[in-house]
């Protein structure tokens, strides 16, 4: 009921009320570009295919290594080399891009002709700036993380190592298909492909039941989203008659709809067209772990950390953002899709942040923070700021990968220990300095400390958008609050794990170089094992590969600040320039005005939807951007301070006011004990998993069992009954078959008599012969 009223209370802001805003033109421009691509299919340079082919080659090679029992690091080096080449190819694709999208075809895939219609979806690729943007960080990060993994996975050298890198390559291939595909089926192929790789990599330690369960959960929850996506794709084809981007974006019908939406009048856009966006949205929610389908992502941390970093933080989970950005025109013609996206994103951001605050497993905290940050991106998309979303995707990719890899380094070094209560002062340990510093960089970015972090700029763009868009101020406030929480939980991790007194309890992972190390520890006797760890444990510090990658990523995080300033005037920065001229180029007129013109938008009352209480573009009476710098910057600092107060080490450098003496005793613990059920609820993730189990999984399971019994007893019973009836009948009449000749003769005579009688009756009734 609440949701229903919520939906009714808002609808799509009529962003095109002002004809001067130029979106009709943008739409026209897009159509021209797309049409150009449609008229010149397969016009791009063929070497672009390398980006896709190299990972496939990597997969095949790794499979061969596995088949021939390779026991060296060659799989890793092969992968790194190939992915690096792919990255270079992407770079050259970026550099050689001339402003018009083009397609490159590998081979024909679907080609069904009937009548004058056809269902065409080829194995070909559509290159525009959005694609390039995504592919740059996908291939770049993949290369770096492969390097990292070459060291991280070294205890699994052998079959597992090959398996890991094969799946890794397959993932990059799938991601490339997802991002570069020139039609929705290619996107779907990539979409499912990354799902598969995610499944394989989460379940990498397949002997651990929890890993298997997490992998299964990830795949199935994603599959629910995929169902939405698939239906959306099918409906697109059914409605627009094509799934190819170039034709779709040049589709006249679509532009008719966009023009209709520009007037704020959605009543003439058929429901079918509006449903497409809603269905695609479900897919995006699944892949990008948005409420209510986010539950798989925290569990996915069962996988090796490089996987968490690449797939579950930087690239795959942003596929939902890419999807919505790519199909922005379709989302625009849906009255309710974008508002729902905005609200779901906001709710997810808040919910995940609250859960993240109360977790103790540092990887899970990062996972929830990922969910939360993805919520930001979705909110941005819903607020018509694809630029903001894309920028946040980019910065988030860097700093979250960094954070994960740093956590992974800790995990690697401390035998799988992830509990922040059992680690302390890691940064001060020998050989862990680089990890400590880079972790700090990552945390600052995630917390969004003002001006000095790229995370601040991207988040600020989203928050400003929320405040200046009429009717969405509430979202803005929620996101600001979430930003404070984010700062808190981020630095909670940092303060507890990386600074403070040096203390470490190793995890339960046996660190021998065994192929099957991760599964077999359960079979070992726990007692002596544990002693061994606590008494003689020496964390082994990260090697050069890990450190190099961490440093590069930290630098990248900091350097991406500059992106906000490149081409700031025209496009909101470099990312904006990449998003512009793609199908995602519909950025909010409000933002445009706020940024460039500083004009008061007194006359911009939307046709549909309620008007915000404050005049658009004003925060605390200031320009939205300036106001945001104030609000979110202060909020972030506030969050860090709170974290320091509750979790900071006592007297740490004499600078902060922390009260933690040992790793597991801090002020927060005392408060949490007294705060009633709330912290426990948050720690248990608001029991969302349990609720799902209770209202979805268990009933479904029960229904399945009921079906099983129905099948066994009722349906099969009926069949058996039909088989049984003749037997009963036979049992009844069998005695009549006495075997005595005269018995049969009697029945023959009797039968003849009956027959005659019947004939006689018929003759008499018909008044026959007599």
């Amino acid at each position, binding site marked *: 009921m609440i949701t229903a009223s919520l939906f009714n209370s808002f609808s799509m802001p009529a962003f095109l009320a002002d004809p001067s805003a130029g979106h009709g033109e943008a739409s026209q421009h897009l159509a021209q570009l797309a049409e150009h691509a449609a008229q010149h299919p397969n016009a791009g340079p063929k070497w672009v295919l390398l980006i896709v082919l190299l990972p496939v080659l990597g997969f095949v090679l790794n499979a061969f290594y596995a088949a021939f029992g390779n026991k060296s690091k060659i799989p890793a080096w092969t992968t790194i080399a190939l992915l690096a080449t792919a990255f270079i190819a992407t770079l050259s694709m970026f550099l050689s891009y001339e402003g018009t999208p083009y397609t490159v075809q590998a081979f024909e895939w679907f080609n069904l002709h009937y009548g004058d219609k056809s269902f065409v979806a080829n194995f070909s690729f559509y290159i525009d700036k959005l694609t390039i943007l995504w592919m740059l960080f996908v291939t770049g990060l993949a290369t770096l993380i492969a390097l990292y993994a070459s060291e991280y996975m070294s205890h699994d050298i052998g079959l597992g190592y090959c398996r890991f890198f094969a799946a890794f390559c397959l993932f990059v291939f799938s991601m490339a298909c997802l991002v570069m595909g020139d039609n929705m089926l290619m996107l779907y192929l990539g979409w499912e492909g990354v799902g598969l790789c995610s499944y394989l990599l989460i379940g990498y330690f397949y002997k651990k039941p929890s890993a298997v369960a997490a992998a299964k959960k990830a795949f199935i929850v994603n599959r629910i989203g995929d169902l939405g996506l698939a239906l959306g794709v099918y409906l697109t084809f059914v409605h627009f008659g094509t799934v190819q981007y170039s034709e779709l974006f040049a589709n006249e019908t679509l532009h008719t709809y966009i023009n209709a939406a520009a007037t704020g009048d959605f009543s003439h856009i058929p429901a079918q067209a509006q449903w497409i966006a809603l269905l695609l949205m479900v897919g995006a929610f699944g892949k990008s772990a948005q409420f209510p389908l986010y539950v798989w992502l925290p569990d996915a941390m069962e996988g090796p950390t490089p996987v968490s970093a690449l797939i579950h933080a930087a690239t795959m989970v942003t596929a939902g953002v890419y999807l919505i950005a790519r199909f922005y025109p379709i989302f625009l013609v849906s009255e309710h899709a974008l508002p729902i996206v905005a609200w779901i994103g906001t709710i997810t951001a808040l919910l995940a942040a609250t859960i993240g605050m109360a977790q103790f497993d540092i990887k899970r905290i990062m996972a929830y923070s990922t969910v939360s940050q993805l919520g930001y991106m979705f909110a941005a998309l819903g607020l018509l700021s694809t630029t903001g979303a894309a920028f946040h995707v980019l910065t988030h990719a860097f700093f979250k990968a960094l954070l994960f890899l740093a956590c992974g380094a800790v995990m690697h070094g401390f035998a799988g220990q992830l509990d922040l209560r059992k680690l302390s002062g890691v940064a001060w340990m020998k050989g862990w300095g680089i990890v400590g510093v880079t972790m700090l960089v990552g945390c600052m970015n995630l917390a969004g400390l003002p001006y000095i972090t790229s995370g601040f700029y991207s988040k600020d763009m989203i928050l400003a958008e929320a405040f200046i868009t009429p009717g969405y101020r509430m979202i803005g406030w929620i996101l600001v609050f979430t930003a404070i929480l984010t700062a808190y939980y981020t630095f909670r991790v940092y303060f507890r794990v990386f600074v403070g007194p040096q203390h470490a309890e190793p995890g339960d992972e046996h660190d021998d170089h065994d192929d099957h190390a991760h599964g077999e520890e359960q079979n070992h006797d726990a007692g002596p094992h544990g002693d061994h760890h606590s008494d003689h444990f020496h964390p082994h510090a990260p090697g050069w590969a890990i450190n190099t990658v961490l440093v590069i990523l930290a630098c990248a995080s900091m350097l991406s600040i500059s992106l906000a300033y490149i081409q700031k005037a025209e496009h909101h920065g470099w990312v904006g320039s990449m998003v512009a001229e793609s199908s995602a180029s519909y950025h909010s007129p409000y933002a445009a005005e706020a940024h460039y013109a500083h004009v008061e938008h007194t006359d911009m009352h939307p046709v549909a939807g309620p008007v915000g209480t404050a005049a658009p573009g004003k925060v605390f009476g200031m320009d939205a951007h300036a106001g945001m710098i104030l609000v979110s910057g202060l909020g972030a600092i506030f969050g860090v301070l709170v974290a320091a107060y509750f979790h900071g080490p006592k007297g740490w450098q004499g600078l902060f006011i922390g009260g933690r003496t040992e790793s597991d005793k801090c002020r927060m613990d005392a408060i949490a004990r007294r705060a009633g059920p709330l912290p426990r609820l948050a720690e248990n993730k608001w029991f969302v998993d349990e609720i799902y189990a209770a209202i979805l999984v268990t009933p479904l399971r029960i229904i399945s069992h009921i079906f099983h019994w129905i099948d066994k007893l009722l349906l099969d019973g009926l069949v058996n009954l039909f088989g049984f009836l003749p037997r009963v009948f*036979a049992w009844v009449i*069998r*005695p*009549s*078959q*006495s*075997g*005595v*000749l*005269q018995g049969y*003769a*009697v029945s023959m*005579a009797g039968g003849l008599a009956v027959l005659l009688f019947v004939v006689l009756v018929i003759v008499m009734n018909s008044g026959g012969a007599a």
Partner: protein
Amino acid sequence: MNHLVQAIDSVQLAQLAFPSEMPATVLAPYLFVSAAMFAIGLIGFLTRKNMIIMFLCTELMFQAAGLALIAFGRHHLQADGQTFVIFVLCVAAAEAAMALALVVLLFRHRESLSASAWKELNG
């Protein structure tokens, strides 16, 4: 009295052609006898256990059928009835030959003529 004269007339066997049409009232008693004989044959077949008697009863039923055939042929003034009785006779003879051979065979196996001695086919 003229009935008696008529009777003697028709027994003159020299006068062999069909003397005249036979009305239905004359046909009916013959058919009645035929039906009765058939019924008796049937009952005999159903009740008697001796296989030879049973075969005799089938012969009796053949006789009943033959009588009806000839009576109808006479009624219609046609020879087909008699022709069929010839056929019936052939069948009866063949049946008798086979049946008696069978009876002998069966009797050799069971030392009994009872039809009930052979009931391996019971269900």
